Structure formats: C-alpha cells, structure tokens
C-alpha cells in the first residue's frame, strides 16, 4: 500500500488534470492510481469529481465558459475510462439506473451530455436515448429498464411542451420514479406544475445539480464506510 502523501499527490494530479483540461495528466494520474493499488472509487471521487466541482465553481465565477467545461469533461472521461474497470460496485441501497434524453423536436444535447457524465461518474447505469427522442420512448424505456430516475432535457419552448405528457404517463405507470427536467426554457415553477421531482435550468446548473447529487452519494458512501 502507498502512503498518504503519495495518495494525495495522485488525487491532486487527477484533480488538476480535470481543472486544467489536460487529458494526458488525467490518464497518467489514473494509471498511477491503478498501479499503486488505490481504491478506484476513491480516486474518482476525491480526484476527478473534486476537480469537476472546482470547474463548476470556475464556471459560476465566469472564469470558465462552455468550451472549457467540455474540455474538462473530456479530461475527466480520459481518467474515468481507466479507473472504471477497477471500480467496485457501490452499495448504496439503490440500484441506480437512469434514463436520459432530449425530448422530441430538440437536437441540443450539450447539457444533457454533461448531466449524463455525472451520472456515469456516480456509477449509475445510464440509458442514453440521445436527442430528438419520441415521447413514448421515454415511457417504454423506463418500464423496460425499471430505472429510478428519468431525465428530460429541452432547449426550446416548442419541444418543452412534450415534457408534461411524458411525466404524466410515467407517473401513471410507475409513481415511484423520479423525474428531473432541465434546459433553458424550463423553470422551477414548471417543474412543480408538471409534477417533476427535480429541475436544472441549463448546462451549468444541471452540472451543479448533478455534482450535488454525486456529492450526496459520496457522503452516503462515507457514512456507510464509517459503520
């Protein structure tokens, strides 16, 4: 086993790799973590994800813009690809699968992909339906995969109007399923009105929401480990 100093050095490398959108550093750091026999889950959360948390902060402070966020996401994935096969299945009491997609009539999927990434990181099983997804496909996919969460994204008001129909159908068949909606035209009020459980305004907020969620999972995990 390696000592704490070496461990922190590797995590720091992963974190900075994400922040500096340096894919090579992330790959290197991830490989070092694997070679040193570090816990892959821990490397993801304390390295990659804590880097992405900082990226979210930089975006809020308007130091980073969309291009930087996407490059950071690429760097995170570069590390994640190496660490993922070494991950132990996290036992959190939830099975953790999510259906995600951009609703019919909409081809904007940058925000959706960022949210998907954070679910990926958190170890969820992600069923990505892509963009311009027919309304019934969400309902069918949810039933088929028995997912706990369904995420709907839309960038335009014209495509957004499909959301309440999906929510209604899913809730009728499966009242326990959580539904998150997001995208520029949506709002907290609309989410409440349509009976959605979560809401994220745009890519940055979706990212923040997803990070919050992952952070929550991280806390759960730590509490579990303590016991």
């Amino acid at each position, binding site marked *: 086993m390696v000592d704490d100093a070496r461990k922190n050095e590797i995590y720091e490398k992963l974190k900075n790799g994400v922040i500096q959108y340096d894919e090579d550093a992330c790959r290197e750091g991830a490989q070092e973590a694997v070679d040193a026999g570090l816990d892959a889950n821990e490397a993801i959360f304390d390295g990659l994800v804590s880097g992405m948390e900082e990226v979210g902060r930089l975006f809020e402070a308007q130091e980073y*813009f*969309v*291009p930087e966020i996407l*490059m950071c*996401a*690429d760097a995170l*994935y570069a590390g994640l690809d190496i660490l993922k096969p070494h991950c132990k299945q996290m036992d959190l009491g939830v099975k953790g699968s999510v259906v995600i997609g951009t609703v019919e009539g909409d081809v904007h*999927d*940058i925000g959706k*992909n960022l949210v998907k990434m954070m679910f990926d990181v958190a170890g969820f099983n992600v069923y990505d339906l892509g963009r311009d997804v027919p309304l019934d496909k969400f309902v069918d996919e949810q039933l088929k995969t028995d997912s706990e969460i369904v995420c709907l994204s839309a960038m335009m008001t014209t495509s957004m109007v499909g959301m309440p129909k999906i929510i209604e159908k899913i809730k009728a068949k499966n009242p326990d399923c959580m539904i998150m909606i997001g995208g520029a035209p949506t709002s907290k009020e609309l989410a409440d009105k349509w009976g959605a459980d979560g809401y994220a305004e745009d890519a940055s907020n979706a990212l923040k929401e997803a990070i919050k969620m992952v952070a929550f999972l991280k806390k759960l995990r730590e509490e579990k480990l303590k016991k």
Partner: protein
Amino acid sequence: METEPLKRFLLREGATLVGVGDVTPALSAEISHLNRGIAIAVNRSLGAETVELLSGLQDLASGWLKVRGFRSLLIPPDSDRRKAKYITKLYKLFCHKTAATCSGLGWIGKNGLLINRQYGSKLSWATVLTNAPFVPDEPTSESECGTCELCVTHCPSQALEGHLWSVRDPLRVLVQYDKCRALKSRRTALDERPNCGFCITVCPYSRKSSRRKSIRQ
C-alpha cells in the same frame, strides 16, 4: 491589438496563409465570447501529414495566446471526422470557411468551396477562435467568380446551382450536397476512392496555382 506578430510567427512555422477576422455574427451563444477567428491555411492536400501540421500550428497559436492571457478554442482541420468527445460538439457550431471569408482570405465559390485568389481551393484550413482583441483584417463580402461557370458545367452529379455567394445572403444554397454525396458514395462502391474533385480541378484559380508550381519546378 496587432495581428502582425502572430501572423509572422505562424507563417515562419509553416503556414501558407494566416488571417484574423471578426467573426461575431457567426457565433452561437456557447462561444460568443470568442469573437476573433484566426484562419490558418496550408497549401497541401488534406492528408495525415497536413492535419498534423495544421494541428501543430493551432497548438502554437493557442500557446502564443495563452501566455498573453487570452482564451482560445481550436477547431481542428478534420473536425467532421472527430467524434466521441465532448468538445467535438462545439466544432459544428463554426466552420473554417467563415473564418477564412471574415479574414479576407477568399470567397465561397460556385462550387461551395473556399476560393483564394492565389491558391484557389487547394488549401487545407484550421481555425483558432479567441477572445484576444485583434484588429481584424478586411473581410471578403462578395464572390469573385463572376460569370465563370466551369465547375457548374463540369460537375458530374449536377450538384452545383451556379449562384454567386454573398455575405449578405448566407442562406442561399450553392450546392446540393446530397447529389454530391450520392456520387461520391457510388464511386467508393466502385473503386474504393470517394474523391471526385472536378470542381477543384477545373477552377481557374486552382489551376493557376498548380501551373505556377510546375513552372517553379
């Protein structure tokens, strides 16, 4: 901010042409802060070597800007072939031809390709978007194809409409790309070579550039 130092630097490193344009009108919200487009061209056909050279030039430009405290977004020469990454989502928001016309390096010909007065369409392009407040070059706003219709008459798939491009009418369809693509895929099936390139070969501007080269040799 002057563009000369950057241009000289990139030309010395192997670029054939470098221009800096004000690309504000062509930007979508995600990249609206990067309103200067640096168009870099290399006078060679698009092969692995050219892509490497252009990517190298882009990295140099990006580094040059970074030490001066500016942001940049690199649109690689083969942006349509790069997938599977997050950043590639942004590539299709901006095309190389826009940067080239905005920096006055050419116009869009009746063949739908960028035509430079000296090199015709025989250039490969890469773009660097940046927020550095460069004084932009004079843009090209009108086509210089005039009455020439060689590419239109020689196109084997009759895909060219023969319209003159103008910056004031950016939505006008110059090429029926489905026809062009259909021919290319048929050719690929026949002899595994998708290339057609008639519209480049017959263009007087492109021919002029090769003739000049052969004289020199």
